[in-house]
């Protein structure tokens, strides 16, 4: 075969490969574009000069950042800065309690061996099968009896009290901590509490970061529970989710839709940052733990 012919074949296969690459990346780009349309629409609409819903064009007719300014100056309906602070405060407390609970339960279930451990785990699986909504209805009445509805304490309790049930991912991680490490510590006269605090926790940084961020994000992402607990209260007590939802009520949507979009963008920014930090641990944690049941 002449070199010319070989060259031609090589060029052809190279060409085929590069068209393949172009097609492949084109497909990915298309998919990503489809996935991003709502986000693009959110950001574009938030910069619209028109306060209500834009139904005729995808992009706003007039661009302006005036609604961001409006969103940050409270009026009778919109108290976004207060909502943001409320959510932040609730998130901090939830994060504190949930993280402690999850790590405690996970350690006890993973590292320690005691009677009734398996039974407790099975019981947790059983409890998880009941719709959370059902328990919430009763919790609502209980909280109401104690005057804790429309209060942030009640909401923090709702978010964090049962968080111990979500211990599986952290347990999956603790399961991979080498047992020999604990044995060595025990031989050195370390008690179980010491092993937990000084040996296991320092090696469990990824799962701690994951638990902290995911429990911090719960109040930001949640809508139903916040609506149930805070719905009847005053606007200054709302979280971002409840507040923004109220903006879309039929009588308000035409004056507040753009502000809703601004609020959506402003909430999404900190969440996205945290999510990107968590992303790595999310994959690690989930693939280590939960999926293996």
């Amino acid at each position: 075969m002449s070199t010319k012919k070989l060259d031609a074949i090589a060029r052809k296969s190279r060409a085929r490969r590069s068209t393949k690459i172009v097609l492949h990346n084109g497909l990915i780009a298309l998919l990503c574009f489809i996935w991003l349309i709502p986000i693009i629409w959110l950001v574009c609409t938030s910069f619209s000069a028109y306060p209500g819903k834009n139904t005729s064009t995808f992009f706003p007719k007039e661009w302006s950042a005036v609604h961001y300014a409006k969103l940050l100056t409270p009026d009778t309906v919109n108290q976004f800065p207060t909502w943001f602070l409320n959510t932040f405060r609730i998130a901090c407390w939830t994060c504190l309690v949930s993280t402690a609970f999850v790590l405690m339960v996970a350690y006890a279930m993973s590292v320690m061996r005691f009677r009734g451990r398996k039974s407790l785990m099975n019981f947790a699986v059983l409890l998880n099968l009941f719709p959370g909504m059902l328990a919430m209805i009763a919790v609502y009445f209980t909280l109401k009896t104690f005057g804790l509805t429309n209060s942030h304490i009640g909401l923090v309790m709702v978010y964090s009290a049962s968080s111990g049930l979500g211990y599986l991912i952290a347990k999956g991680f603790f399961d991979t901590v080498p047992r020999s490490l604990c044995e060595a510590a025990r031989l050195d006269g370390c008690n179980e509490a010491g092993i937990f605090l000084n040996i296991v926790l320092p090696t469990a940084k990824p799962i701690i970061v994951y638990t902290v961020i995911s429990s911090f994000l719960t109040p930001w992402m949640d809508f139903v529970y916040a609506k149930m607990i805070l719905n009847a209260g005053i606007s200054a007590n709302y979280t971002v989710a409840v507040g923004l939802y109220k903006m879309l009520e039929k009588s308000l949507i035409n004056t507040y839709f753009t502000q809703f979009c601004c609020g959506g963008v402003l909430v999404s920014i900190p969440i996205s940052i945290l999510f990107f930090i968590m992303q790595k641990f999310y994959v690690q944690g989930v693939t280590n733990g939960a999926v293996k049941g």
Partner: protein
Amino acid sequence: MGGKPQAYPRLRRRPDNIATILCQFFADFGKAMAKGDLFVKLTLIWWGAGCLRRKQYAKALILTLLEAGVIWFTCGFAMAYVPKFATLGTVQAQQVFNMQTMQSEWNDYDNSFMILLFSLFSFVVWAAALVLCMKSVIGAYRLQFDSQNGLHINSFREDLQEYLDQKFHITLLSLPVLGIVIFTLIPILLLILVAFTNYDQQHMPPTNLFRWVGLTNFATLFGGGITSTFGYAFWRILGWTLVWSFFATLTNYFGGILMSLLINSKLTRGGKLWRTLLVVTIAVPQFVSLLLMRNFFANTGIMNTLCERIGLTAALRSAGLISTSYIPFLSAPGWAHVMIILINIWVGVPYQMLIATGVLMNLPSDQLESARMDGANPFQIFRAITMPYMLQVTGPALVTDFVKNFNNFNVIYLLTQGVYVTTNQLMANSQAKEVDLLVTWLFTLTQDYYNYKMASVIGIMVFVVCAVFTLIGFNFMLRGDKEGTYQ
């Protein structure tokens, strides 16, 4: 332990199922009562007695205080509610004119809900007290045994030390378990009880009483009278809930795997960037993104304007697929069902993509290489190597995902609440919509119609269905219990 004799004969092999544990607990208790001295027997009445006899003063004091607390709780609180548990209260709330104050005042009425809630709470407290009492009897006998055989008896400090060492799990678990009992277990039990009462809008405490009605609500759901449409609505909604969970789980699962294969392929340029773009869509909270979608696909929304402009609406109308001047993306049965599943793909696939990426990173690459050597095409590799591996690792997660989707409140509620109005009179009679899942129906029933009795029955049914699917699912899936692998 060294050469020290065993303090108290205990079972060597520790059984770990609830029946054996209970049997042994009762056997221990019986033995303690039979062989114990006067103080052990006295412990049954005065919890601190046994400890006091063995000079464990601090522990005796704590137990006595606890007992006093339980007695105070019983007399001061529980007795006001528990005796009325059988009837759930008999005194209807009324306004009575008081001659002394010249004002009308409420009479001393019964509140059925409080009676139910606090009775249940009392039962839980009493059950805990009973266990504590029996435990202290067993403990007292153990102390007697130890002291008779001249063995070491723990000081209070040593007892406390134990809670940081052998009994550390009790320290760790007590608070989380308390949280779960109060915020999950008691509420669930409470609503199971409500399913057997007639607690609804006509029987709302405090102004009205509700009472036990036995299995009537279950009969309403399954038998249905002539007027009741709950049975009709229930089977319809259950059917759609199952269809939805099936498609939502499957589309997300395979969509996630395909997406992850696509992005992690060798042909991809700038893989991290693409993944980041997709993750942005997860980071936007669902109440923002879904409420936005709802307006995007609204009857007068932008999607309809676009479809109108390109002539799609007219084409569909002439094809007889729609009869309105707009495309009812989220407001007509059929259309809404499909749209919800499609939008859920948008919501869920990036999540599954992240998980699948993590799992596929550990895919044994030697198998892939040898398959490629043997000339397998990408589809064959996917079918014979990638998928079996994925299924093996994430199989159980598929079952939990199914249950999660079965109870997926957010997607349905945020997309259809206030937008979708049912035209089916039978559904409307039961306050249901064609696109409702059982959980959203349950939510509407309680939030808007105060129909707690039916909501509780539906909740129980949800549990039954989820439990059945979980059992079947886990029996089919190979359960990869890796608990002991690394330890």
